[in-house]
C-alpha cells in the first residue's frame, strides 16, 4: 500500500469518527432547537392547530433523519460481515426449527434486495437448504428492515421497536416451520430442479476495516438518499393528522373495540407496497388518534412484509398453490400478532 492510499484510508475512518460526536450533539439538542425555531424564529402562536402541526414537523424530521443515518451506517458495516454464500453454508446442514431460527436471524443481517430473491432462492434450495428454512429467510429479510426499525424507535420508542423485531422474527420462524412441515416441495416449478447452480469461483477477498466503513457510508448514500423524501412526506402527512384530526377519530375504525380491524388492516396492507419510510409516520399519527397498536403494527407488517411485486417475482419459481400457502401463513401470523398486542395494551 502506498502512502496516498494509506492517507485515504485514514480519512475514511477519521471523518466518521469526527462526525459521531457531532451527531450526538445535534440529536440531543433537537428539542431545544425545535422550540427555538417555533417560538423565536417563526413566532407562532401557541395552542393552535397550525403551530402544533409545524412543531411536530420541525422536531420529527431532523430526528428521524439523524437516526436513519446512524443506523443505516451501522447496519451497512454489519452487513459486510455477512454474505448470502456464508448464510447458505450455515443453513445447509440445518434441520427444521433450528434452521428456521437461524434463517430468520440471518435474514436480518444478510444483504438482501427483493430483485435478488430468485437467484437467492435457487441458490438456497439447490444446495440443500430445506424449503421451510429458505422461507423463514425470505420472510424475515424484507419484514425486518432497518428503516422501519429507526422509524418505530424514533416515533414510538424502544419498546415498540423491540416488539417489532421480536414479533417479526417469530412470524418468520413460525411461517417457515409450518411451510416446511406441510412438505410443499412439489409446488416448486419444475425447472428449478433442472437448473444447475454453478459454483462461483469468485475468491472472497478479505475486506479491510476502512472498506467496511466505506460500505457503511455507501449504504447511507444509497438508502437515505432514496427514502428521505418519503420520510419528509410521511411526517408532513403525520403532522397534518397530528394537528387537525380530532382525538379518538380513529377509535371506531382502527380501535380495540373493532374486532375486525386487525384482519381488515392485513387484507388492505398485503397488496399495498410502500416502503416503511412513507407508511410509519402516517401510522403513528393514526395511533395518536385512537387506533390501537396491534392493528397498526399488523397493517405495517403486511405492507412491508408481504408485497405484490415480490409475490410476482416469486411466481417464477413457485406454483400458485405454494404462493397462496405462503401468503396465508404469513397473514395468519401477522393477524395473531395484531390481536395479541391489542390484548396486551
Amino acid at each position, binding site marked *: 500500500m502506498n502512502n496516498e492510499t494509506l492517507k485515504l484510508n485514514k480519512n475514511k475512518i477519521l471523518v466518521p469518527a469526527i462526525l459521531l460526536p457531532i451527531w450526538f450533539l445535534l440529536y440531543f439538542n433537537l428539542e431545544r432547537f425545535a422550540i427555538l425555531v417555533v417560538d423565536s424564529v417563526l413566532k407562532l402562536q401557541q395552542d393552535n392547530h397550525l403551530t402544533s402541526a409545524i412543531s411536530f414537523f420541525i422536531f420529527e424530521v431532523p430526528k428521524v433523519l439523524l437516526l436513519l443515518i446512524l443506523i443505516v451506517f451501522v447496519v451497512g458495516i454489519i452487513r459486510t460481515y455477512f*454474505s*448470502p*454464500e456464508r448464510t*447458505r453454508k450455515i443453513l445447509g446442514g440445518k434441520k427444521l426449527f433450528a434452521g428456521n431460527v437461524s434463517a430468520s436471524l440471518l435474514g436480518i443481517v444478510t*444483504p438482501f*434486495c427483493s*430483485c*435478488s430473491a*430468485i*437467484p*437467492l432462492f*435457487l*441458490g*438456497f434450495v*439447490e444446495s440443500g437448504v430445506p424449503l421451510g428454512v429458505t422461507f423463514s429467510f425470505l420472510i424475515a429479510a424484507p419484514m425486518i428492515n432497518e428503516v422501519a426499525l429507526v422509524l418505530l424507535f424514533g416515533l414510538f420508542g424502544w419498546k415498540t421497536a423491540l416488539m417489532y423485531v421480536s414479533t417479526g422474527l417469530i412470524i418468520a420462524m413460525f411461517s417457515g416451520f409450518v411451510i416446511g412441515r406441510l412438505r410443499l416441495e412439489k409446488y416448486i416449478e419444475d*425447472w428449478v430442479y433442472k*437448473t*444447475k*447452480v*454453478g*459454483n*462461483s*469461483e*469468485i475468491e472472497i477477498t478479505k475486506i479491510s476495516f476502512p472498506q467496511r466503513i466505506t460500505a457503511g457510508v455507501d449504504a447511507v448514500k444509497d438508502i437515505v438518499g432514496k427514502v428521505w423524501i418519503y420520510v419528509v412526506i410521511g411526517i408532513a402527512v403525520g403532522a397534518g393528522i397530528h394537528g387537525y384530526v380530532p382525538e379518538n377519530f380513529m377509535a371506531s375504525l382502527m380501535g380495540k373495540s373493532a374486532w375486525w380491524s386487525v384482519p381488515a388492516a392485513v387484507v388492505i396492507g398485503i397488496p399495498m407496497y410502500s416502503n416503511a419510510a412513507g407508511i410509519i409516520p402516517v401510522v403513528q399519527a393514526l395511533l395518536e388518534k385512537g387506533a390501537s397498536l396491534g392493528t397498526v403494527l399488523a397493517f405495517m407488517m403486511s405492507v412491508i412484509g408481504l408485497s405484490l411485486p415480490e409475490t410476482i417475482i416469486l411466481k*417464477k419459481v413457485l406454483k400458485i398453490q405454494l404462493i397462496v400457502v405462503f401468503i396465508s401463513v404469513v397473514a395468519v401470523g401477522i393477524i395473531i400478532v395484531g390481536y395479541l398486542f391489542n390484548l396486551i395494551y
Partner: protein
Amino acid sequence: MKVKILGTGCKKCQTLEAKVREVVQQNNIDAKVEKVTDLSTIVSYGIMMTPGLVIDEKVKSYGTIPKDDQILSWLKGE
C-alpha cells in the same frame, strides 16, 4: 473480450450496464458487452445477488456496483 452483466432488470443492474458500457467506450477497450437476463443462466454462474459482472466467463463482482476505476482495471486484465 466478453463482458456480461447478469441481472433481471432491477435498477442496480441497469446502472451497472450503463456504467460498464461507458467505461468501455471512454477507454477504447475492445470488449463486447452483453446483458444476461435469463435466470437459469444467471444462477449457473453461482451468484446469489444481482447484478453480476462477468469478464471472460469469470465472475468479478456481484450484488454491488463496483467503482469506475475498479471496473477499468478488471477490463485491462489487471
